[in-house]
């Protein structure tokens, strides 16, 4: 027999799935804008929408706790949902920040996109995995995200080190790429946190630490 609380839990899950899809699309579109050198305004609209959805998840989570005083896996799911929702919202927020970089720095066609685009590909893959890991409560996928985080971290750090050793730097390219790599690195961190939350839902294990 379905429980009364399941109506709310299903709504919570659907909200998060919607956020997952939208945040994946938002980051992908921001990176497409970088690739094409275009300002795609829908990124900012979707980023705002993700903030609204995050607020809805928080309100619904609090309502479920107040109404049903959930325990065990229900409690873990609601607790993790708030963290996952925040992660999806942050994906959107960093996509918005990437758009701001494009607006601020203007034409980046002359810059070498290789490092940023490689990092973006890995980050988008991590986002996709985080959404799927949540949707299917898949611990293996969640663990895979963590193992990918180093690639994006290293791309950012290696780029900074390389810049510091360079004698001649195109400031427009150096600053914009540094910022975008930093945002991608943060998105990848949030993907890792979402993976950790999926593991917490399924197994109750807390990660040893958060970066």
């Amino acid at each position, binding site marked *: 027999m379905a*429980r009364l609380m399941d109506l709310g839990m299903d709504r919570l899950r659907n909200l998060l799935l919607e956020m997952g899809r939208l945040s994946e699309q938002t980051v992908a579109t921001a990176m497409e804008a970088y690739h094409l050198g275009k300002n795609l305004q829908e990124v900012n609209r979707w980023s705002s929408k993700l903030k609204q959805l995050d607020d809805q998840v928080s309100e619904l989570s609090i309502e479920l706790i107040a109404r049903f005083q*959930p325990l*065990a896996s229900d409690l873990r799911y609601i607790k993790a949902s708030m963290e996952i929702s925040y992660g999806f919202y942050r994906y959107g927020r960093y996509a918005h920040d990437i758009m701001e970089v494009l607006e601020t720095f203007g034409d980046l066609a002359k810059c070498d996109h290789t490092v940023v685009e490689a990092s973006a590909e890995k980050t988008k893959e991590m986002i996709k995995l985080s959404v799927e890991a949540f*949707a*299917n409560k898949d611990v293996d996928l969640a663990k895979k995200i963590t193992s990918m985080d180093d690639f994006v971290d290293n791309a950012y750090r290696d780029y900074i080190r390389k810049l510091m050793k360079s004698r001649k730097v195109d400031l427009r390219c150096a600053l914009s790429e540094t910022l975008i790599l930093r945002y991608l690195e943060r998105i990848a961190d949030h993907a890792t946190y979402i993976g950790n939350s999926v593991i917490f839902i399924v197994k*109750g294990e807390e990660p040893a630490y958060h970066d």
Partner: protein
Amino acid sequence: MNVQKEQPARMTEEGVLRAAGDDLAKKTAESTDFAAKIRSVDLDAWFGKTQALKRINLGIRPNKVTAIIGPSGCGKSTFIRCLNRMHELVPGARSSGRVLLDDEDVYAPGTDPVLIRRRIGMVFQKPNPFPTMSIYDNVAAGLKLTGMRRGKNLDDVVRNALQQASLWDEVKDDLRKPGTSISGGQQQRLCIARAIAMQPEVILMDEPCSALDPIATAKVEELMVSLKATYTVVVVTHNMQQAARVADFTAFFYLGKLIETGPTASLFELPKEELTERYLTGRFG
């Protein structure tokens, strides 16, 4: 994105219980690795031919609140009534195994059950002050039976018990009024004061708030938590949120078996046994 439809794990209660029962030896080991104030060892209990408790091994930590939870008929009330030998007062009821109070078997031959019940007091579901007695006499009744005479000492004990039960300020000017003249919540605290007056070591509470409104319930819950500084408290409750609020440790019973026990926070957030998970999340039946 490939989203699979969620399939909740299904297993019959019987199947899960069988699996849990197979693991009882392990549970015994888990439950005995600390100094308990009171401990049941291989405790069985029957009502006639019906077995109500099956090999319960559970240690109750001193100066803590331990909650016993589980669905109706799981044996939780029977369990606490075995702890102070009240179970044997029911015609046809019997038990086997041991109950150790500070390592002393309360069922050892020659042990006086009345003395045991003095050391292990009890508060019941429905407030049951003696209807013909005043508030004062309700608290003093047990002491008078032990031969204590009315006087300053008795007055002090009554006041102290009422203070510990957080009732003194509300009744200090009405001590001669009937015990039944006060509200249900106050009557329950009067019963707690009556138990405290006997200076027990352990206080057993069997659904002490089920007949009370939320405000009276909150007062009794606050009382449970404050009492553990002096006493060991065991509370049977149907209300899982109450267990979550007051208990340091929780034990889950099902069909006469102890399924799982542990610190309340971890048992309620991450139960080890599937049966516990299903009970806590309301997925029984």
